[in-house]
């Protein structure tokens, strides 16, 4: 079975500036693959190359089995896309935007009506379908674009920061819908995002991209495990017992490292749940009194910091600025 997306040593240069510096990855059929990275990492550039919007500089890229440079039209008919930046005609109504899209994709009249009605329902725009898009709010426009991207039942769906600017409820609603489509039709999805929870929630695999390079690529679970692993946070009664327990832990093979934080002792292990009984029995044998134990699972946030040297919040502060920019241009 061919990969839904196959990318090998892909390079995209704007003049002398390389926005994408030789990335390689594959997306299997039916997979939800996430691109997580800070501003300017090269996410949108990658999406634009894969969707034939811009030409690559070098390397190879195939979507749905077709070369993005040689078989543009075949790639185009196999994909659906939700762009990061606005792409609606705001002098048309919401319905017309969908209808025109469907006509161009060769969907017959009855089928068109049915699908549009379904999509409008999904994004909760049924009541506003007859309004001109210039009267839509930023979030309504985003939902309309998502509906449009799904209308032609693509084999591979590209979503470039699809939930940017949406409220939490709508975001969750749309993510669940996307997940559902993925399950039902084995739809392959390439999604870029700033939201770590979102990537964690929806993606089968994630690539972390920074400065045009993929710095890590794995399942969310594996990415997290590659870090320090889980921490068992053991709360002790005194400084002295803390030191005693550290000494005891150093002898144990299942312990990766320890870190003291006041009376809390962080014991880093592969998996905290199975380590806690062992820690408890060691402490008991050494006569150390434990007040409480807590499990800390590493988050994707930790992974992001580890690989990019920044918290997503640093990059989010900038991106919020940008969201407002986008919203302004959407409001126009």
């Amino acid at each position, binding site marked *: 079975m061919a990969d839904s997306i196959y990318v090998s040593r892909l390079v995209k240069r704007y003049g002398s500036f390389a926005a994408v510096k030789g990335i390689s990855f594959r997306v299997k059929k039916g997979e939800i693959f996430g691109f997580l990275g800070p501003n300017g990492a090269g996410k949108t550039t990658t999406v634009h190359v894969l969707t034939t919007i*811009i030409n690559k500089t070098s390397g190879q890229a195939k979507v749905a089995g077709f070369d993005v440079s040689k078989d543009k039209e075949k790639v185009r008919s196999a994909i659906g896309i939700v762009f990061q930046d*606005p*792409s609606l005609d705001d002098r048309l109504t919401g319905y017309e935007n969908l209808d025109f899209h469907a006509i161009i994709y060769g969907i017959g009249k009855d089928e068109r009506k049915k699908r549009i009605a379904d999509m409008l329902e999904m994004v909760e725009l049924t009541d506003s379908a007859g309004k001109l898009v210039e009267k839509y709010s930023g979030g309504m426009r985003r939902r309309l674009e998502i509906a449009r991207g799904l209308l032609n039942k693509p084999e591979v769906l590209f979503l470039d920061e699809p939930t940017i600017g949406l409220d939490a409820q709508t975001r969750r609603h749309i993510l669940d819908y996307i997940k559902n489509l993925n399950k039902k039709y084995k739809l392959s999805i390439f999604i870029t995002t700033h939201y770590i929870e979102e990537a964690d929630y929806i993606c089968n695999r994630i690539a972390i991209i920074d400065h045009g390079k993929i710095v890590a690529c794995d399942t969310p679970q594996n990415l997290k495990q590659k870090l320090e692993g889980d921490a068992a946070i053991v709360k002790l009664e005194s400084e002295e017992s803390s030191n005693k327990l550290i000494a005891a832990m150093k002898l144990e093979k299942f312990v990766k490292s320890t870190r003291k934080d006041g009376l809390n002792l962080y014991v880093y292990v592969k998996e905290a749940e199975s380590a806690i009984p062992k820690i408890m029995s060691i402490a008991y044998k050494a006569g150390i009194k434990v007040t409480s134990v807590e499990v800390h699972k590493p988050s994707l946030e930790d992974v992001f910091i580890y690989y990019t040297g920044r918290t997503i919040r640093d990059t989010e502060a900038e991106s919020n600025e940008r969201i407002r920019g986008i919203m302004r241009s959407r409001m126009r």
Partner: protein
Amino acid sequence: MNRNLAAIYVLWLRAMKRFKRSPSQIIGSVAMPFLFLIFLGAGFSAVKFPGLPPDFSYIDFLVPGILGMSMLFAATTAGISLLWDRQFGFLKEVMVAPVSRLSIMLGRTFGGITTAFLQSLLLIIFALFIGFHIVSIAGLFVSFGFMLLIGLVFISIGLILASVITDMQGFGLILNLLIFPIFFLSGAIYPVSALPSFIRYVTYFNPLTYGVDGMRGALLGVSVFPVWTDAVVLGVTALVMLALGAYSFSKAKAVA
């Protein structure tokens, strides 16, 4: 339905809907030719140009020129709308559609032509009120043909420029620099024969000259060249421009 035909149809339909919904655009595009018609018509009605048959009024002479102007302006409208679509992102949506670039270009062209044609019809109706005579219905229809050809030529030019130039100001500047000489050196408001011979040669390289001359031949029965010559020259130019337009459009950027 074939996807390419569907794309042409949709882009045409889109142009119609937008046209219908923006009365200001209609008024704005008709205003300039309309003012030219009124002011020139009033100002020159008493002036006798050499070479103009005695039994025609200046209005009769002027109307084909003004119709040419109105079709010429379609170049600006078509170009601006392409730049606009690129600026506000809709062009991306069109460019990822699984259809040929040619059909996208044709869809836009037909949309632009229809719009300009409807505006020109409005001008003809105005003209009837200020003394313009339609001599024959057949001639009127032939002149419609010329209007469409003029539209094809200049919309293609507008799309070529908008494919190459990506900023609005640059586009506006260059297009105005082109459009006004084209208009004044086409015989639209005075006979080409009134020009010094050196400039007259320049007018022979101007497609609008043949368009306006053809329309005069069809509407009034007087023309510098035989009407069929006008038709052939303009038709061939239209084909060449269309091909060039399709080529540059296929190279056009989808994002700003």
